[in-house]
């Protein structure tokens, strides 16, 4: 059933697949993010409690939810790479990591910028902000571990082990931070209360969540193509491409 997947362990076929997928991902990501953002910024009704500041939701929630999803994607790719020794999967993980870190950073920063008008302070040790911060540290750990090995085959394997250990720990960390913050701050204002959001507000949010996911996919493909080329510098098909690029 999964036999067709095996052929993509060949770097050249994986590269070609990435090239064919990239325009679709890029186009739909641009479309959805523009629609979602413009709808959210201009047409969605104002929140009667938070005023216009709630419009930060249209980038904060997508980046926050995608930061976790990107980590899961990275860890699954590492898992495939380690268990079945498929190098192309290792490279996927290596390409997602920096993107995930940027998305997590965005989620943190927009959370802080939303917290300032709502809570009156840039940073509170709120459960979600804290676990997002820990997630950023996990990403940075994976990135710097991957960067510090000279041999990239070993680097991918080491970073993969770390990513998988992190995945086992994420629920524990999340649970412990939730529990810790409910212990220390009994009365925080929840900014993303899931209280019956009207459809006109919810629709652009959902569009943007999907759009952010597709955008992460698109940037991953861009980085993935470069990663494949960098790891296969000795292959003839890569050398052809290099020759063409140099003569441009």
């Amino acid at each position, binding site marked *: 059933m999964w036999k067709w997947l095996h052929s993509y362990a060949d770097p050249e076929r994986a590269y070609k697949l990435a090239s064919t997928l990239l325009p679709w991902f890029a186009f739909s990501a641009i479309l959805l993010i523009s629609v979602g953002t413009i709808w959210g910024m201009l047409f969605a009704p104002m929140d009667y409690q938070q005023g216009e500041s709630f419009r930060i939701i249209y980038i904060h929630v997508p980046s926050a939810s995608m930061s976790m999803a990107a980590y899961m994607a990275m860890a699954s790719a590492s898992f495939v790479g380690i268990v079945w020794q498929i190098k192309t999967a290792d490279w996927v993980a290596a390409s997602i990591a920096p993107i995930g870190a940027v998305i997590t950073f965005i989620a943190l920063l927009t959370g802080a910028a939303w917290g300032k008008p709502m809570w009156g302070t840039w940073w509170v040790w709120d459960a979600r902000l804290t676990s997002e911060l*820990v997630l950023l540290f996990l990403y940075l*750990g994976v990135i*710097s571990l991957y960067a*510090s090995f000279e041999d990239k085959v070993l680097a991918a*394997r080491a970073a993969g082990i770390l990513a998988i250990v992190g995945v086992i720990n994420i629920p524990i*960390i999340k649970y412990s931070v939730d529990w810790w913050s409910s212990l220390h701050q009994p009365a925080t204002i929840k900014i993303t209360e899931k209280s019956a959001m009207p459809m006109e507000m919810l629709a652009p949010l959902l569009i943007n969540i999907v759009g952010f996911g597709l955008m992460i996919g698109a940037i991953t493909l861009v980085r993935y193509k470069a990663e494949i080329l960098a790891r296969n510098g000795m292959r003839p098909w890569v050398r052809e491409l290099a020759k063409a690029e140099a003569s441009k």
Partner: protein
Amino acid sequence: MKRGISYTQAFLTLLQRDLKIAIRHRGDIFNPLLFFVLVVTLFPLGIGPEPQVLSRVAPGIIWVAALLASMLSLERLFKADFNDGSLEQMLLSPQPLPILVLSKVLAHWILTGVPLILVAPLLAVLLHLESNSYTALILTLTVGTPVLSLLGAIGVALTVGLRKGGVLLSLLILPLYIPVLIFATSAIDAAGLNLPYTGQLAIIGAMLVGSLIMAPFAIGASLRVSTN
């Protein structure tokens, strides 16, 4: 293939060897302990000597210092064996790697975790810890420091082959230490208020069991990557 010795024998032999080596280099045992004591004494100098303030922050200070001390001492866990090649011999031996790794981690915990637990009550006195909290402090340290050693060993195994692994190690393992820190300090706080803290202790115990089962395999896989 004949294995030569049983798993238990292999485990005990390696444990004995590590303890013997450590007793011959006593600095390795005392330096982390000294670091622990020094960090704890710095805090009152930094935040002022008022007993109320100190007893409020004591659990956190003791635990954070213990965490840092255990991380510092971890660096040496595989370094010497890696440098003189005995680590590769272990990887090549017919005994399963997780068992050997577990024995090394246990030796490390006996050498650094146990002294920490013994010294902690004295430091708690200096920090005016609530008198109800002492049992909780000792219990959380007893159950929690092995978790620190096990999780930390994964990070050490990943960085042992790198020349500048020190700072990287802290980035890799400190996030993994967060749950232990949270539950341990809250258990001590609860004990100070005469509340039951068995729940927190049970969760740390669960983490200990979980990491005992899973960490040796992760450490083994990481060592195979590092010694390649």
